[in-house]
């Protein structure tokens, strides 16, 4: 699939912008702070209903405007689909597909699929586990939009259970409270948690060979890359073949029963996929804390490229391969990595690249070029 036209109203710095796009490589070139990333951020928003830079919608709406509108025309399997999103901070976003309103904005998920690599992704390797969990969950949603619902159900059960642990902790410990309510939330958390956990475990299994290939291709180092899912249920969950959902649910229930006293003490849920970690290692060492800056970059890039390849392999089902977005990436890489990354992505159906200066874009990626300056978007090639 590819985006054929992007149109913005009051999005970030743009009062309006019209950007026609072609398949193949398109470089968005302009000095820093002129609005290149805003354009690819809008493309990403259509695919994920979220921004890779901020967690709320408010910064996406131009200062002084009430709402922002993003329109993207997407070509998939010879058909054109128009997705329109109206972003209303503090309110519900509205969405239309081919001019027809859809009841929930969530239903546009899956129409456009993107894989975006940005400087922020360095945190995938160097940052806290929450970033790696989000990476897995976002990929799950891209593969099967149903998981957006699974994830939000799990989060809601978790919030309810935490609220109960906090409020009831004192009374239950004093032997006066009613633990039966907690039992109910335990069973709901185990049910939703097992579904999420099982899906993540299968995803890590599927993803690992792609990460190894991509890392070897980008870095040309013989270092062995490994991904291990670390569940609070025990190391055996992440090693070996993933247990089934029923087994995971029972084990989550057992683990909650074991840690009930501690959970009541601390007033938070200590068991479940929201506490798990994806451990990345290079050779015998965990990447976090041990890997050099360059190795971290290569590994973060390998994770995104692996996600891209996984979605692409899944596209055999007829969804069309995802759009690849490389935001300000080449400036950070040395000449060898730059060249090899260019080779890797040159075969993609559509690649959007942003760069501050044209020299940052490798020659082998010569394609369309759009200059961005002072909020003006101009096609030059």
């Amino acid at each position, binding site marked *: 699939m590819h985006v054929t036209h992007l149109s913005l109203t009051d999005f970030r710095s743009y009062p309006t912008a019209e950007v026609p796009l072609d398949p193949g490589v398109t470089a968005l070139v302009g000095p820093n702070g002129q609005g290149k990333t805003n354009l690819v951020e809008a493309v990403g928003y259509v695919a994920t209903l979220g921004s890779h830079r901020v967690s709320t919608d408010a910064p996406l709406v131009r200062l002084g405007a009430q709402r922002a509108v993003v329109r993207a025309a997407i070509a998939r399997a010879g058909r054109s689909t128009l997705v329109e999103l109206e972003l209303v901070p503090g309110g519900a976003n509205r969405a239309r597909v081919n001019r027809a309103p859809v009841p929930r904005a969530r239903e546009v998920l899956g129409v456009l699929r993107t894989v975006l690599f940005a400087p922020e992704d360095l945190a995938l390797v160097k940052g806290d586990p929450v970033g790696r969990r989000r990476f897995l969950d976002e990929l799950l949603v891209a593969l099967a939009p149903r998981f957006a619902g699974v994830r939000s159900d799990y989060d809601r059960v978790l919030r309810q259970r935490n609220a109960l642990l906090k409020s009831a902790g004192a009374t239950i410990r004093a032997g006066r409270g009613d633990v*039966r*309510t907690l039992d109910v*939330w335990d069973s709901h958390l185990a049910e939703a948690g097992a579904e999420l956990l099982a899906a993540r475990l299968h995803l890590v299994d599927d993803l690992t060979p792609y990460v190894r290939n991509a890392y070897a291709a980008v870095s040309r180092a013989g270092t062995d890359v490994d991904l291990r899912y670390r569940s609070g249920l025990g190391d055996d969950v992440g090693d070996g073949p993933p247990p089934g959902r029923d087994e995971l649910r029972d084990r989550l229930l057992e683990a909650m029963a074991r840690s009930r006293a501690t959970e009541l003490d601390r007033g938070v849920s200590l068991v479940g996929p929201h506490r798990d970690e994806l451990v990345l290692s290079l050779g015998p060492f965990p990447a976090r804390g041990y890997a050099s800056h360059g190795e971290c970059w290569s590994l973060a890039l390998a994770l995104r490229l692996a996600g891209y390849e996984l979605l692409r392999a899944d596209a055999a089902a007829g969804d069309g391969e995802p759009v690849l977005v490389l935001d300000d990436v080449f400036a950070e890489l040395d000449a060898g990595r730059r060249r090899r990354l260019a080779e890797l992505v040159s075969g993609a159906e559509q690649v959007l690249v942003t760069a501050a200066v044209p020299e940052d874009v490798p020659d082998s990626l010569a394609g369309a070029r759009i200059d961005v300056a002072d909020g003006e978007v101009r096609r030059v090639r």
Partner: protein
Amino acid sequence: MYEGVVQDLIDELGRLPGVGPKSAQRIAFHLLQSDPVDVRRLVAALVEVTEKVRFCELCGNVSAEDQCRICRDPRRDAAVLCVVEEPKDVVAIEKTREFRGRYHVLGGAISPIEGIGPDDLRVKELVTRLASGEVTEIILATDPNLEGEATATYLARLLKPMGLKVTRLASGLPVGGDLEYADELTLGRAFEGRRLLDV
């Protein structure tokens, strides 16, 4: 800001559910321009509702007397009890004319975030009601959302040991709709709850 009493009226209206400041202002000015007879009738209805309407001492539904119309009706099946969250759910189920048993209104659903636990709902009254042994089946008709499901699970665990038949309303596809328009969660539930066709 408007002068004294007008602003008081707008503030009071704005406290009603679903009424924002703009709507409150519009309703207030509508009332100011209405025939005083109409306004008095509204006032009378409000006064009457606060003075006369009570909650049924048995089921917790709104009622003009000690017991509501449904609890007093001898033709209703006393063996089946349908548990709902709110009085408006009783109205919704009554419209189907399918259910001939009686109701029990909980007054909400378990939601720790809002500080609502089983003790804040009419659960104790439900257990007391079941003590006579007249009721043999409980239908759990709480909302099919997270809080409603949790309430249903809680009640099922509480009531099953009492030897009652406990059932839960089915979840699935809306009747008269198209399969393709169902969201994935509803469709997934419909798959789980599929039934054998007898032909």
